[in-house]
């Protein structure tokens, strides 16, 4: 396969790794979605650049028909896909400031952050606004103000109440009912950490959130039941999870990045093991 050089790829940190050679092609993959089943996870576990990694993982996001959720990537998945975590953090920060992606904090109890491309998110917000209009709920201008004023200026995953009100007021008169509407639509939420702060949320994330937690538990228990708590990556990838519609690749990357699993190279390929540190 031809090795297409990506002009924005920074110099690969540990260049010359055989497995990374094969996935530098097909950036912007509309046909990646069809062909990626041919590449096993073993070949494309790591990438060379954050934006390449983000786009490839977005293309690999499983299509779930019941939930209309934009494809998201967890930060732990990014950590497992790239060598240098500091570099990942800095590049992600750069992308966030350039308004290419948006970071959301998920309410899982651990430090989970979901990264979504801004275009996908805005498309989702528009869909919700349209749906609310169809249901003839009053005052759907709030979504427009939200998009224009709040999303544009506030890049962090959380926002304080008074700041939210002042930013929305730039669009028009804000009532409490408007904020209730935003929460009902799933765009804002509150978490137990701080009663004064609203957190930006991904709309209709509930089903996938549950799937994430259950899938993690299932995968870990699957591996823990083995005698030596390890399994070949190629074999693990072929299994299906019962409780999670998200695919196995998603969960494997996530658990490697958060430190619950570790991989090491053997003569027959990569092996995944539960880490005991």
């Amino acid at each position, binding site marked *: 396969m031809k090795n297409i050089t990506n002009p924005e790829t920074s110099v690969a940190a540990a260049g010359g790794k055989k497995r990374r050679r094969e996935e530098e092609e097909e950036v912007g993959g509309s046909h990646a979605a069809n062909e990626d089943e041919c590449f096993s996870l073993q070949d494309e576990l790591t990438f060379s650049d954050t934006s390449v990694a983000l786009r490839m993982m977005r293309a690999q996001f499983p299509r779930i028909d019941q939930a209309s959720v934009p494809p998201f990537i967890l930060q732990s998945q990014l950590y497992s896909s790239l060598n*240098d975590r*500091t570099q990942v953090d800095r590049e992600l920060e750069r992308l966030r400031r350039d308004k290419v992606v948006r970071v959301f904090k998920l309410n899982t109890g651990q430090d989970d952050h979901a990264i979504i491309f801004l275009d996908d998110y805005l498309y989702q917000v528009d869909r919700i606004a349209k749906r609310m209009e169809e249901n003839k709920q009053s005052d759907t201008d709030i979504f427009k103000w939200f998009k224009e004023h709040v999303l544009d200026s506030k890049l962090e995953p959380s926002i304080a109440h*008074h700041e939210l009100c002042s930013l929305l007021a730039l669009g028009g008169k804000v009532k409490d009912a408007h904020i209730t509407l935003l929460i009902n639509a799933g765009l804002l939420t509150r978490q137990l*950490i701080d009663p004064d*702060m609203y957190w930006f949320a991904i709309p209709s994330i509930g089903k996938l959130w549950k799937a994430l937690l259950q899938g993690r538990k299932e995968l870990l228990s699957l591996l823990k039941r083995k005698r030596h708590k390890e399994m070949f990556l190629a074999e693990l990838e072929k299994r299906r999870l019962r409780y999670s519609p998200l695919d196995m690749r998603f969960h494997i990357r996530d658990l490697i990045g958060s430190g619950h699993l570790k991989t090491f190279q053997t003569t027959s390929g990569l092996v995944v093991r539960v880490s005991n*540190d």
Partner: protein
Amino acid sequence: MWQAIQARETGRTPCNSFANQLKSRRISSLQLCNRKDFVSPHRGAVNSLQVDLTEGRYLLSGASDGSAAVFDTQRATDSEASGLIEKHKCVFSVDKGHEHGHRFAVSSAVWYPIDTGLFVTGSFDHLIKVWDTNTAQAVVDFKMPGKVYRTAMSSLAMSHTLIAAGTEDVQVRLCDIASGAFSHTLSGHRDGVMSVEWSTSSEWVLYTGGCDGAIRFWDIRRAGCFRVLDQSVTQLGVRPPILKHSAVSTKVSAEKSSSGAKNRLKTLHTRPSVEKARQKRLHPGMLSTLDRATAHYGVVTGLKATNDGMYLLSAGKNKAVGYSIGCNTLLNFETGRLQTSKAIQMATSDDPALVFVPCMKTVKAFGMWSGRTTLMFRGHYESVNTCCFNSTDQELYTSGADRQILVWSPGGSVEGEMDQDEEAAEDKDNWSD
């Protein structure tokens, strides 16, 4: 090695860089020491280690069984295996049997920074005791409102001898040894304070990290904290950005009184309608209590300031990050999981710039500016609580829940380094699978 010495003699290498090269070579070969051993008298997890600041010779340790012990790191008490392994027994120890000893776990033991005549221990029995080293008697007692998590004394202090104490109470108290009373009470945290650290660049600045995830900077000469670190205020790169003129809002609009803050943390009630901005008159020093920024999403378990005073490293639930004064530098140390219920103590070395962080059962050394793991020390049987780096000898002391104090020293003897140029005769039969 001989060539390096010759280069120094002829002036090709300046003295400082010769010493630094030697030190960095030694540090990069740190491994479990097979020549030196501390015989630990503790019967509980060792929570705190500190080498004294004046000579770098005496190691003070505090443990969960209420005992504190002092070891001499340079002179062994006896030796085994015909002089090859040196055993260091403790010079003395004060434990529960001592008439003035602590009754519960000692969470923190620090030396008096001026000389080794005094040391200070803080314990879960709500007391901070100042001990006289020569007579092993407790000289002063301070009673705290809650369990003491950490005590700290400033190594730069010229004009004060204050002990900063972080307890499970929300207020940080400063105790004065000279007068025997509390000199300051610093309020601003919304939960217990687990880590306290004095600044290495100013004798008046104190950094505290709380169980609420906030890190606050206090200048003890004025009221209130002057900065709260926010993890979303970031900088790209190691150097802080040149500050644009930032609009400072002195009166925060539309908030409730801060006394209700503690209760509201537990309940999630619906917000009343947006009222007109109610400006409550607060003392300017108390304005910082309204700042809710957090540096970590969980408990801040460890703080360490670098020796040049420009950066602060903080450890939280799953990550250890570096903050330059003001901004999050986005340095991500690949720590994996860190323990969250207990405070940990990190250590730094200057040249090469390394950070030693205890991660569960291992201690990992990270390059300070790259965030990558350079060395990993596996030797403890249980989780590691503290590490302390002795820069005069380039030795690392670590201790943990397995009651041991382990020594990690540069591998290879000095003679081995001198003979580096000659080919060492390899024993080809000495292999194993």
